[in-house]
């Protein structure tokens, strides 16, 4: 009995089974991402009211806040996969962690750049050495460290495990970023949206932000699935199914 449920649970944990599943899921996620980001941008730019203090420039938050959320969220997800990989010695988990890292780094970079765009008109400076900005910058370095460590080690097994340990060590930074605006009373404003209190912004603004977040989320899943497929192809090129000419998907990509 246990054996049967196990097989169902872990069926897609083999790269061979995951590869076609990822291929089937990817277009749906991509379509959802395009739709949600389109709707989110429309609400954000045309429906949401102009801010009485900041004017039009505040509208960058519809990209900035979701990107910052995703940057932290993806780091945690990456670390969880890395931890699962170390704990269960599962190669696909390491592949997942590897596939997530570049997207996470991209969102961190996007959050920093959009933050600078917002900071210039609002604070009068592109960059300030504020606790949240600095810790977000550290996050970018941590993503870079995870990716660099992986590429510097030739043996893929060691590369997987070493970068997983580093990803797990770096997790301490995520709560620091999240609570930085509460722990240090600095320039970056506190959270406007929280689970426990009523949001301090207009409903349309909140809707746009949440729709954009969902869109970014779908985008991340789509891109990570594509990258996961590339990683699987690259790593499984020696195995029989990976080079088998009858496998339609593989031939297409080659």
């Amino acid at each position, binding site marked *: 009995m246990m054996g049967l449920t196990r097989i169902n649970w872990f069926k897609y944990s083999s790269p061979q089974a995951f590869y076609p599943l990822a291929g089937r899921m990817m277009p749906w996620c991509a379509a959802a991402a395009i739709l949600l980001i389109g709707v989110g941008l429309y609400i954000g730019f045309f429906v949401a009211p102009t801010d009485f203090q900041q004017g039009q420039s505040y509208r960058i938050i519809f990209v900035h806040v979701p990107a910052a959320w995703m940057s932290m969220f993806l780091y945690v997800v990456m670390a969880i996969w890395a931890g699962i990989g*170390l704990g269960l010695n599962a190669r696909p988990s390491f592949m997942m962690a590897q596939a997530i890292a570049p997207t996470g780094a991209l969102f961190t970079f996007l959050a920093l750049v959009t933050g600078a765009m917002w900071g210039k008109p609002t604070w009068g400076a592109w960059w300030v050495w504020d606790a949240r900005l*600095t810790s977000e910058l*550290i996050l970018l*370095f*941590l993503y*870079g*460290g995870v990716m*660099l*460590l992986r590429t*510097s*080690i030739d043996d893929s097994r*060691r590369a997987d*495990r*070493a970068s997983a*340990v*580093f990803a*797990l*060590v*770096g997790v*301490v*930074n995520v709560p*620091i970023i999240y609570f930085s605006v509460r722990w240090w009373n600095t320039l970056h404003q506190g959270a406007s949206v929280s689970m426990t209190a009523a949001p301090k912004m207009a409903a349309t603004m909140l809707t746009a932000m949440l729709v954009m977040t969902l869109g970014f989320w779908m985008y991340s899943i789509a891109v990570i699935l594509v990258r996961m497929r590339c990683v699987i192809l690259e790593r499984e090129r020696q195995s029989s199914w990976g080079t088998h000419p009858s496998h339609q998907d593989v031939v297409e990509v080659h």
Partner: protein
Amino acid sequence: MNQPGMLAALREIIRRDLLLALRRRSDVLTTVLFFILVASLFPLGVGPEPAVLRTIAPGVLWVAALLSCLLSLGRLFTADYVDGVLEQMLLIPQPLSVLVIGKVTAHWLISGLPVVLLSPLLGLQFGLSGEALGVLTLSLLLGTPTLSFIGAIGAALTLGVRGSSVLIALLVLPLFIPVLIFGAGAVSSSASGIGAGAHLSLLGAGLLLALTLAPWATATSLRIALE
């Protein structure tokens, strides 16, 4: 039951590493000289204005301490790794974390403690006053062991990897940043009269956190590197 064995192993590892360092004194001297040199570059670069020097002193001395720690990290495991001793050490009956704690302690005694002891002198050259000097020394005393513990993770992860000396800096420096912020913050806030208590407490908390988690992470990384 196993306690005396573990402590004996810890003592032996520290003794061995200190003995090795004593036989190669130039290694120790390099780190200390580097610390002094980096700190002395700033008055030359920024200019000898006493007020400016006093303001930048905490940050400069902390960055110099951090860089000199980084400089010596490469030696933490490399020599033992190259001659195969490390592989034999993995076979000792005591937990690997004990070995790591021993090696990190020896590393701190060799490269961290001299920096701590020298810092009041350099602080004096930067024009820090009596109380700020004490806080600087105390903050370094609490902070540099944390740096050694965090650095050990990076040293173990990059063991035998090509370009490891640059890679270790990229991995470890971001993790050093919180220690730097609280360490330099303690001195600055004591100099401006707010009191250094909060920063020093955070440094102590960071040390305890590093003491509990870093040996485990380092031990895992060593096993990964040597398997």
